[in-house]
């Protein structure tokens, strides 16, 4: 069972960088087994699409534009991401997550089990720190990821700090 934890985000737009802060948080506070890869995907989108084809289970962590308070966490599965009503766009090149997954399908690439934890951002201003509600969200999402991995028999233990 190969697991990939993919943190997406722009590290210099405060809360936008949550996913990247998150993988760093895991690295710092948890013992990461050999079969779990932490990946800081930044904002590369399609340039690193292949990471989504490289594991048996992928956990994506990113900010999400959903109705809610800053720090609220939402969970989505692959099917949720592959919305049936992909928004009307004027250009086919606005390649987002859904399209990347679809292109992977077209290439007959492996389709790992995919879980997406999205957190509502408070600030996207330039800055390399998270706002308090998102800072608090790091450990909340970590707990969710631990639970998620326990279901498939992968144990993430906190370092004795």
């Amino acid at each position, binding site marked *: 069972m190969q697991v990939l934890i993919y943190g997406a985000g722009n590290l210099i737009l405060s809360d936008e960088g949550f996913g990247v802060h998150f993988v760093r948080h895991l690295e710092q506070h948890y013992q990461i087994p050999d079969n779990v890869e932490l990946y800081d995907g930044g904002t590369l989108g399609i340039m690193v699409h292949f990471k989504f084809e490289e594991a048996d289970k992928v956990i994506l962590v*990113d900010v999400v534009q959903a109705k809610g308070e800053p720090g609220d966490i939402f969970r989505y599965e692959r099917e949720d991401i592959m919305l049936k009503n992909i928004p009307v766009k004027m250009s086919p090149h606005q390649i987002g997550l859904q399209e990347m997954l679809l292109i992977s399908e077209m290439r007959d690439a492996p389709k790992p089990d995919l879980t997406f934890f999205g957190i509502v951002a408070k600030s996207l201003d330039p800055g390399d720190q998270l706002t308090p509600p998102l800072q608090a969200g790091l450990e909340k999402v970590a707990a969710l990821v631990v639970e998620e991995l326990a279901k498939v028999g992968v144990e993430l233990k906190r370092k004795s700090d």
Partner: protein
Amino acid sequence: MSRITLDPITRIEGHLRIDVEANGGKVTNAWSSAQMWRGIEVILKGRAPEDAWSFVQRFCGVCTTVHAISSIRAVEHALDVEVPLNAQYIRNIMIAQHSVQDHIVHFYHLSALDWVDIVSALKADPKKTAQIAQSISDWPGNSEKEFKAVQDKLKAFVAGGKLGIFATGYWGHPAMKLSPEVNLMAVAHYLKALDYQRKASQATAILGGKNPHIQNLVVGGVATAINTENIATLNMERLIYLRTLMEETRDFVQKVYYPDLLAIAGAYKDWFKYGAGVTNYMAVPEFPEDTKNTKFMLPGGVVMGGNIGGIRMVKDHRDDYLIKNIKENVTHAWYEGNGTLHPWDGETKPDYTDFKENGKYSWCKAPTLDGKPVQVGPPAQIMAAYAAGNPKVKKLVDGAVSTLGISLKDIHSTMGRLFCRGARAHVMADLSLDNLDKLIANIASGDQTYANHTVIPKGEYRGVGFHEAPRGTLSHWIVIKNKKIENYQAVVPSTWNAAPRNDKGELGPYEASLVGNPIADASKPLEVLRTIHSFDPCIACAVHTVDPEGAEITKVKVL
């Protein structure tokens, strides 16, 4: 008259809004507006100069390596540090492979669908497609079987209602001109291209450490240890793997991307007549071959008013004319005042006013060279290399000019930009391998130096780091005071190209390139996208929040 607003014009590379006025099927006026404040420079003030390079990699969603290179060069220039040959070659390989990856993705995934009609590919004859593909290239992946498989897959997706990206776009738009077979060939290669851009990114990672953000730079060189004998470091076996990857990407670029580009360009020859815009160009020399950054594998130059013959060559990265004359004006940008400042004295004080077409309307400043707007990007570098008589570039350009039946001045156009990017990718693929050969020869000769260890001294220093990046000339400007960053400004390629009007009211390159552009249907402004995408727009700091509500992301408002 209709007024069309496209917002945003790209998603993965951040926020760009384009407004055009169309009269009688032609664009008569245009505004380019960056919709995000890039106050990144503010974050850097007070930090250690030797750490800036790892921060600036986060400037942008797509171009990471380039900012790291520019930043480290800015510090090296400020402190007059020499860079050992091994480090130059390693940086050169990373730069060239990053370009290869970037250009492959741009051509296939960010611009090809402006020209390629995916739905039309459903009607293609796979056998004929294979004949066409084999007639323009000896690449082994162009069999009838391959094309049939892609077409079957496409049909299954259509039948299953899973069109996704392929359901939208401008299929059947009257400006789509390719035959079903060429469309199918391009779609098949669109999917294949993903495998090859990945190989290029793996190649960069072998040298740069973790992908996608390189980790191996230090002021004065690189932290990459190569020991041809030792298994634990970068050894001969890894270098052989690196070569294999780079040979594969080279073959894809030269036998798939480039022939596809020429086939598409041949079908859309009228696009060599549109989209010139600003014909002042600038490129800096790239791929240093000595420790002092005075000798380069590719030249740079400044072309004014489209006069390639009158090019002023840029000899090295200490070119006084560039260093003195690059300035940024904020008359039409959302920053305080209307002044023109040199980047070393640059300010980033926001002053947001809403979109005012005669006032301030963009977060982009307007960079100028000697007071004039300038276009940067592959055309500038290709023209400089052509003017300098670079044999490879000359052969590619002359070959294409005769194959396509165009003239040299047709390079100033929408299709010309796409052509130059493909030619640049062709050159980069070879340069990657040339630099690897040089690296291995240099190590074999006994040179074991990878960095000149540098301590930031007390006092005040100014530096500029130039880099000819995939989207054009990039410069990072640093002022160091008592071991801390006192000021930092990055003048990025997309700022040159996406610039709003300057203090004299002259249009920026995107804006000017749209004026005169045809527009068949104001509600489907495909032609506007063609021209803007030809620049490979990359407005730094991609905000890529996933929108689970499926809300409409793009507004095309026809007023």
